[in-house]
């Protein structure tokens, strides 16, 4: 591990240690926050009991679906909009202000239309994550050097071959940023929607535990989601670093 990595790990361990100490010494009321060690032991018990398996399956399934739809549809929409400059000109102001609008206000409307099923959660998740992917795709395609298109013509490549062999790899760093944002937005939207109103899922579980003053269960579930989100983001970060290293030839 690098020196920076060691310092990062030390900071995290120190913060967890400080929280543990504050909880154990009564500086923080155990009715508000339980010690991290108790969170971990509660999570181990929960996972061993298998009582949250169905919720884990449901929530992670919905998140995966939301992320996949956002990335695929967002990329396709981005490519299409990029090819239609007038449509793009018309839509640009909406993209620029999209995240200034609280999209979640439409969640009750979606529940009214589709009922208490995974459908409103999937829709609100995709609505939250897809625009990040569209914007990243547009940015990426904008930044493909014009000379590469000329090179494609010199090599007599068709439109599809140009897109797949030159435009896509040239735009890849921007597309990857879109993927990372879609993953984050997908996670946030699905958990938040389940938390607000859902018949099942980890977000609903956290909400129920909170309402029942069941701190052990609530913090165990929060810890579980934190671990999953951290693993996914660390994986994406490692991939990003690997691609960046190839492009920069290992230079920082």
């Amino acid at each position: 591990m690098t020196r920076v990595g060691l310092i990062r790990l030390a900071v995290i361990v120190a913060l967890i240690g400080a929280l543990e100490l504050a909880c154990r010494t009564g500086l923080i009321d155990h009715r508000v926050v339980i010690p991290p060690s108790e969170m971990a032991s509660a999570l181990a018990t929960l996972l061993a009991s298998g009582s949250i398996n169905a919720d884990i399956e449901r929530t992670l399934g919905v998140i995966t679906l939301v992320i996949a739809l956002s990335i695929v549809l967002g990329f396709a929409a981005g490519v299409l909009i990029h090819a239609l400059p007038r449509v793009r000109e018309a839509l640009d102001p909406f993209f620029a202000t999209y995240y200034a609008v609280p999209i979640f206000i439409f969640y009750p409307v979606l529940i009214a239309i589709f009922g208490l099923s995974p459908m409103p959660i999937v829709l609100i998740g995709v609505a939250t994550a897809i625009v990040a992917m569209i914007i990243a795709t547009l940015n990426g395609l904008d930044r493909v050097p014009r000379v590469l298109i000329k090179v494609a013509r010199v090599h007599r490549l068709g439109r599809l071959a140009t897109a797949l062999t030159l435009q896509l790899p040239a735009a890849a760093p921007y597309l990857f940023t879109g993927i990372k944002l879609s993953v984050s937005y997908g996670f946030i939207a699905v958990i938040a929607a389940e938390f607000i109103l859902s018949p099942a899922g980890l977000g609903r579980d956290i909400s129920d535990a909170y309402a029942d003053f069941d701190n052990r269960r609530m913090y165990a579930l929060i810890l579980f989601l934190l671990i999953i989100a951290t693993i996914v983001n660390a994986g994406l970060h490692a991939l990003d670093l690997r691609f960046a290293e190839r492009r920069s030839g290992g230079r920082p």
Partner: protein
Amino acid sequence: MHRDIHAQLNGVTRVYPGAGEHPAVHALGPIDLDLRKGEFFAVVGPSGCGKSTLLEVLAGLQRPTAGTVTFEGKAVSGAVAEGIGVVFQEDASFPWLTVWDNAAFGLRRSGVAEAELRRRVDDAIAFMGLKDFARAYPSQLSGGMRQRVCIARTLVLQPRLILLDEPFGALDAQTRLLMGDEVLRLWRQTGATVLLITHALDEAAMLADRIGAMSARPGRFIEIIETGWPRERDSTIVAGPAFGEITGRLWERLRGESLKALGHADMAQSAQSAQTAPRAALAAE
């Protein structure tokens, strides 16, 4: 067509149509040019005179507004013909591919057998002095080496007409001289016809058999100068008096045009008078 003529432009003009508040721009011509098989032809002219437009029309990357372009007797219009290779001024290496894969890019799509592909790519990389960098990525190379990667990518396709659009524009003077030697070596060994677009008079004077001096926009050839260099030559010719004469003559022809391109029409007029006065005096004598 004369059998020595490899590519030809006949009455070629290029007008970029106006859009909205922007008026149409007459960028090029009418222009005529016969490129002889195996010659090294350089095009020089003031900024914005249509040099790159000329190259792109000849390559088939742009359609001429009027006139005809032929390569090996066949019309070229709006598509790059087989046998034409182009190297651009901008860095056109692919940062996501190694030097070797960059060079192999075009050949991989041409259906050449794997063994033949390997041989041609290895040869091109060795020829361009990149053998030790075959597994490196372009970001690990200098600007001059990246340009060599682009030349290697063109070279593997064994083009019969090589079009170079200011390929050394972004390089320092010493590297440009050395790259000039490499291009001369490439030209001699491949036997290809080369058309070089450059803004550097010394580069044109050192490399070319013939140099076309272009007017300010719309670009036309105001003079085509034969350098008379032997085929076996390199950058050491810059030390000789003939080199100075050629660059001096080019500058004499282009000074007024460059002033015009900068918007100094009055200065261009007096530059032209200064050129013609001594000749008139000599004629009177």
